[in-house]
Each structure stands twice: as C-alpha cells, then as structure tokens.
C-alpha cells in the first residue's frame, strides 16, 4: 500500500497534508459555529420579544385602586332619578373629607380629585342606580385611580427625577403618599382589562369589545371558510377531471395563498363596503374578509388530509357497491376529518392575528361598548393592540403589552389544540 501512495508522489503523513486537514477541519467548525450562532440569534430575538412584552405587560394585570368612604349626599342625587346625580361633586366632597386642610382651596381640591379616575363617578352611579336605597348613607367604594398615579404606584414614575420632567408634581406625590400611609391604596387584579370595553382613559380601558368582536369575526370566518374550503378541496381532490378548468382553480388557490393581506382589505373595502353597502367596522364584514384569506389555507390542508387516506379504503367501499359520493362522504371524509380540523384551527389562528385588512374596513374605530351582534361596530384584538400602541398615554404601553399577551395566549391555545388533535386522532396507515 505504501508503494502505491508513494507512486502518486503525495505524502499522506507530511506536514502539507496535515496543515490542509487542519484547514478543512477549521472550516467545518466555522460552519457549525455560524449555524449555531444563527440559531442563537433567532432564540435571542424570541426571548427578547417575549421578555420585553412580559416585563412591560405584567404591570397592566394589576390596577391601583383607592378605598374610599363615600357619603351619598341626597342633595346631589335625586332618589327619583339617581342616574342624573352630580357624582363629581360627591367625589369632591369625599376628597374634602380625606384632606380637610384644603377644603377651601378649590384648585387644590380639583387636583386632589384628579387622583381618582374619571370613571370613578360612573362606578358610583351604577351602584346607586342598581340600589337607590343607598342614597343618604356612607358606602365604601373601591375605585380606580387615574393613570398617572397608577404609574406612580407601580414605580414607573420616579420621584427622584427633577420635578419639571415628570407628570406629577411634588405635592401631588406627597398627597398620594399620605393616602398610601392611611392604607386606602390597594392594588388588586385588574379585572377591568377583560370586562371593560375601550376607553380614552388607560385605567378604564379593557379588551371586552375587542374579544367579542374577534369572536364574531372568527365565527363568521369559520362558518364561511370551513364549508367552502372542504367543498372546494373535495371537488379538486376527489372529483375534478384533469383539465384546464381544474388547473386554473389550482393555480388560483396557490396564488391567493401568497397575496398580501392588505390587498384583501382593499378588496373588502371596494366590494363589500363600496358595492354592496355593508356596514363599516362590523365584525361580520371582517369575518368575511378573513374567510377569503383563510380559504386557501383550509383548502390546502384538506387536500393533504384527503390525500393521506389510503386508496384501499376507497377501493373497498367501491367494491361493495357504494357510489363515488357515498365513498367520499361515508368513508374518506370522516377519516380525513382530524387532519382537516387541525388545518382549520391553524388557519383560524392565523386569521385571529391578522390586522391589516381589518384596518381598511374600519375595525380600528374608537368604540366604548362591546358589540351585541356581528353587525355592530367593533374592534378586534389585533386592531385594538394597534390602537393602543398608537395612543400617547403612558398607561397604554403596558396595556398594549398585556393585550398582546392575551392574544398570544389565545394563539398558543389554538395551536396546542391543533397539535393535540393531530397526535390524538391522526391515523397512520
């Protein structure tokens, strides 16, 4: 053997070969490290994304409240008509009791009252309207404080910064510290985040309208795209003859899957709103738009699921005399159903996060109540995130992050459900 090697004139053990080998190994390691680095960057970005959302968003899951004793003065509330009472005055009186020393200074009093959220008066009003017997009594209320003080209590406003650079002045902070010392400041779980609709005031803003709107939109999307998608996929996969017409449909579906989402918004704006005169901002119209986008996903997933059913099933059914449609609807479709449902859930999860087309049909309107039907104006979760991200108030930063965490929770749940269904029901032949 050594003779042969020497015959080529190459020294396999010589320094030239050794250094070449070293170089080759180095380049091997380099590629490996580059790959690892790339994955590390992707990991890092995901961590950074989730980390920044959690670190800003967790603050929004609690809300500073003030426990106050409110005397429901019959002078300001008429028991005959409790809805029209002067609750602002009642609150001012309440603060007067808390800080007797400023009782005569109206400007100072006004600044004190601004510790309370603008919505505090409505909290009291709703309770009084529900129970007019309370008028004339002193009742304990737990009302949210306004955004600036909420930020202060959560440590987001640093009292150490120069007075000119912060939203709250020294005396305001001192007042709040006084209240804190009296133990009336609480920080309970922020249930308003899920039970309130949108508001101009961050401390009152919640996601209810967006959640209901998204639910209606997804429901519409499902009701439209699921039957249409299955019908189209069944035709293309099981019945369509190989001809130009079915080729055309296939090319169409593949192209639709790659059309930018904002173009679907343009289509909805021109056709649904412009030509058919459907209402703006309605979840129903949003759902129709999302259905058009989800359709290709569902068709592609359904076709894959139908393809996975072995031909022996079809042949056996045909062999005992079933018609082509009896085979498909009685045997193939039920067997493919888990795969179809998995694809549908993934398609719906995509639709839930879709924003651009909903913006174009006006689902970014400012609406302070949850829609009661799919035809009312509403926002959706992603568009609500967009609105809040655009709002200048500081409290909306953490609320945007919190809304995103809520959205991501829904998406993860849906995807987990899809994975679970795939593993539990999918059959391998």
């Amino acid at each position, binding site marked *: 053997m050594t003779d042969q090697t020497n015959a080529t004139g190459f020294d396999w053990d010589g320094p030239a070969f050794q250094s070449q080998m070293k170089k*080759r190994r180095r*380049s*091997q390691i380099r*590629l*490996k490290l*580059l*790959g690892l*680095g790339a*994955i590390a960057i*992707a990991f890092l970005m995901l961590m950074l*994304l989730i980390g*920044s*959302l959690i670190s*800003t968003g967790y603050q929004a899951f609690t809300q500073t409240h003030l426990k106050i004793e409110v005397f429901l003065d019959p002078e300001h509330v008429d028991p005959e008509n409790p809805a029209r009472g002067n609750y602002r005055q009642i609150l001012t009186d309440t603060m007067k009791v808390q800080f007797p020393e400023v009782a005569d200074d109206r400007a100072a009093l006004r600044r004190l009252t601004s510790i309370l959220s603008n919505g505090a008066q409505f909290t009291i009003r709703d309770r009084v309207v529900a129970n007019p017997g309370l008028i004339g009594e002193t009742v304990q209320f737990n009302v949210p404080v306004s955004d600036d003080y909420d930020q202060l209590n959560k440590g987001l406003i640093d009292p150490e910064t120069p007075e000119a650079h912060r939203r709250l002045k020294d005396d305001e902070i001192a007042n709040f510290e006084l209240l804190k010392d009296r133990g009336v400041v609480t920080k309970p779980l922020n249930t308003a985040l899920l039970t309130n609709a949108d508001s101009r005031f961050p401390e009152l803003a919640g996601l209810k309208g967006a959640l209901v709107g998204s639910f209606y939109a997804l429901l519409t999307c499902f009701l439209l795209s699921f*039957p*249409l998608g299955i*019908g*189209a996929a069944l*035709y*293309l996969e099981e*019945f*369509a003859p190989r001809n130009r017409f079915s080729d055309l*449909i296939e090319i169409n*579906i*593949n*192209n*639709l899957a*790659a*059309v*930018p*989402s904002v*173009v*679907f918004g*343009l*289509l909805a704006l*021109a*056709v649904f709103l*412009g030509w*058919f*005169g459907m209402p703006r901002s309605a979840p129903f119209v949003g759902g129709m738009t999302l259905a058009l986008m989800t359709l*290709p996903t569902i*068709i592609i997933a359904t076709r894959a699921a139908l393809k996975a059913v072995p031909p022996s099933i079809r042949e056996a059914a045909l062999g005992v005399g079933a*018609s082509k*449609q009896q085979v498909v609807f009685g045997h193939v479709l039920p067997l493919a159903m888990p795969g179809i449902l998995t694809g549908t859930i993934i398609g719906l*999860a*995509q639709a839930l*996060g*879709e*924003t*651009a087309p909903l*913006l*174009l049909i006006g689902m970014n309107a400012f609406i302070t109540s949850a829609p009661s039907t799919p035809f009312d104006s509403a926002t959706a979760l*992603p568009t609500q*995130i*967009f609105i809040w991200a*655009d709002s200048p108030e500081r409290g909306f930063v953490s609320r945007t*992050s919190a809304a*995103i965490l809520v*959205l991501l929770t829904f998406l993860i749940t849906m*995807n987990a459900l899809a994975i679970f269904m795939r593993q539990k029901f999918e059959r391998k032949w």
Partner: protein
Amino acid sequence: MTLLAFVILLAAVVIGYVMNLRAARAIRDGGTRMHSLEGFHGGYAALMTLVPTFFLIIVWLLFQDTVITAIVKAGLPAGVLGGKGTGEVQLIMSEIRSIAGGRIFGTPEDWKLEAAEHLVALRELSGWLLVAVTAALASAMMYISRRTVAAEFRARQGVERILHGLMVSCAVVAIFVTIGIVASLLFETIRFFQMVPFWDFVLGTNWEPQIPIREDQVAAEGAFGMLPVFLGTLVIAFIAMFIATPIGLLSAVYLHEFASRRVRGVVKPVLEVLAGVPTVVYGFFAILVIAPAIRSFGDNFGLPIAPNTALAAGSVMGIMLIPFISSFADDALGAVPRSLRDGSLAVGATQAETISKVLFPAAIPGIVGGILLAVSRAIGETMIVVMAAGLIAKMTINPLDSVTTVTVQIVTLLIGDTAFDSPKTLAAFALGMVLFLMTLCINILALRIVRKYREIYD
C-alpha cells in the same frame, strides 16, 4: 324579518325531507322495489328546497340596500341634489339613513325627514317581500320535489348531482375571489388614472398625497409619483432580506446537517413560534425595543438616526422572515437525494464541504424559490411598517433615514372615512394594484423555479 325568512327556510327543508321520506317509505312498504333508498328521496327534497331559496335570500340581502338607496334617491324632490358632488350626496344619504335609524341631530329639512320615512317604509316592505318570496319559493320547491317521489325515480343521482354542483361552486369561489381582487383594483385604478396621468404616477419622484379639501385651504398641490414610495419599500425589504437570508440559511444548514434529533426537536418549534407571532406584535416590538435601541446606539457614535428609521422596521421584518426562509431551505436540503450526500462523504469530503459543494448547489433552486417568496412577503408586509416606518416619502436609500412603503401609504390613505371620488383614496388602490402585480410576478417566478427543480429529482 331576515331571521323569519331563515326560519321559514329551515322549516321548509325539514318538512320537505320528512314528507318525501314518508312518501318513499309508504311506496316501499307497499311492496314495490325502489330505485333509491328513502333517505335519498328525503335528501332530494331538502336540497331542492334549500339551495335555490338560500341563494335567493343571500342575493336579496346583498342588493337590498343598494336598491332601496337608489329608490329613495330617485324619490327626493327635484333639485335638492342638483349640482352636488358624489361626496355630498353620500353625506346626505347617510344623514337620511341615520334619521331613519332614529338618530336625529339638529333639525333636518322636511324633505330629509320625508325621505327617511320613505326609507323606513321601503325597508319594511322589502322585509315582508323577502319573507313572502321565501315562503312562496320554498313551498313551490317542496311541491315540485314531493311530486317526484316514485319507485323508479333516481333520487340518489339527483342528490349527487346537486352536491356535485355545490362542490364545483365552492371551488369556483376561489376564482371569484381573484376576479374580485383584480376587478376592484382595476376599476378604482382606472378612475385614478382619469384624474392623475399614468406616467406622472409611474415615473414621478414626488409623493405628497395630502391634497386640499376646500378650495381656499393652503396645502400642497398633491403629487402622486410612486417612485419614492417604491424605493422605500425596496430599502426596507432589502434590509429585511439582508438579515433574514444568512440567519435563515445558516440555521437551516445547522439543523439539517449538524443538529442532533433532540436539538432539532427544540429548535424547530421555537422557529415555528416565531413564524406564528402576528405581525402587529412585531410592529409593537419594533417601536418598543428595537427602534429605541438603534437610536441610542446611533447617539453613542454621533450618527443622526431618524425616529422612524428604516433599519428598525427592516430588521424586525428580517426576524419575522427567519423561520420562513429556514423552513424553505430545510425542505430544499432535505429534498436532495441521499445518494449525492453519501457519495460526497464517501470520497472523504467533510460535512462542511459536502454542504457547500454538493448539497447547496443541488438545493439552490428551492432555496432561491423560498427567498423569492420571502421577498414577496417582505414587500407585502403591512403592520410592521405601518407601526415602525415613516409616513413621508423620500428619494433616499439611506437605511438610517425614515422611509415609507407602499403598504404604509395604502393604510394611511384609507384609514378613517373614505370617499371614493378623491384621487387620494383612489391612489391607494393604484398602489394596491402595483403591490398585487409585483407580488404576483415574484410568486409565479418562485413557484416556477421550485417546480422546475422538483422535476429534476422526482
């Protein structure tokens, strides 16, 4: 009213099904041999009633508003609409509509109140007509299908014909969506080019869509040259691809060639999570974390960085595209026949050499296809740039500057109330047309490349 129509439809379907089923059973029990099972007779009646009536209700609901508005408009006293633009007419019609809905602001003129009453009356009439027509059609179809029940009637074939037709129409919906997209874009784009010359749009270097609303308003004239917008799109897409391509390809290479099964099991889901994050979340991430980070980084070096720098939007878009490119590249590498790889390793090449000299060249068509699809995604991506990129169009390729994109302009032009007769609104549709054509061309090219490549090895 609409609900009542649907209830009538549902009742008719159920009754038709039961009637035909019973009739068919009666014949069978009489000892005659039936061609079709009884269920098919029932199903035939149900489908015969359901399909045409349902279709009628949908068409009715779609066109009801348009027709009623046209009638009310025609019934307005002569002269009140004379000389008014489409926008004003629309405004008047929506005022009439809100009066009809019971929301009266101020004291509208008498003719508006009359028109509102007319509108309410017409709506009521339309509702009752819908119910009447639904009932009539449903019972007619029930009658017709009931007449067909007979021993020799081929009910199964009838049902299958209808179902087949339904499936074909489902498939055709896809074509209609495409037609709808093209038609709506084309229609509005043509109207846009009636107001703004074609070449001014395609070759203009000035984009200032804020045109004056009133005559006396001091504002820019309104310029619609798409080149700066187009350039901004390319700048951001380029930054995104510059980040996503190397990271995506290298991670695919590592996953495909070096990673153990366990590492793959962890990394793949992580990439899938990155791919599943909605774009509005990425947009918020860009303004919350990336843009401030880039700005403070620039401040340290004394670089002037715009608040809406293209770098922030582009790099976040790049992060979004990493999993997209990586999964395409992984698929492409996986589709290279094993024999090529084994052959290369057998003659003594290292793994790295096998990848760079054998696998990569063989997979290049698939990878290029994937990259092209990613480019098309980057161009069409909306939310990240709407939130993180600028609004003002500049002819610049400086990534530190703020640029705008086609999608940003579409969204900002159309957010809020829109009238369909101003060049500002129509410009959005023209941009949409450009976007659609661009992404369509890239997609077709990408699919061609991928398909061609598949033919070599399959």
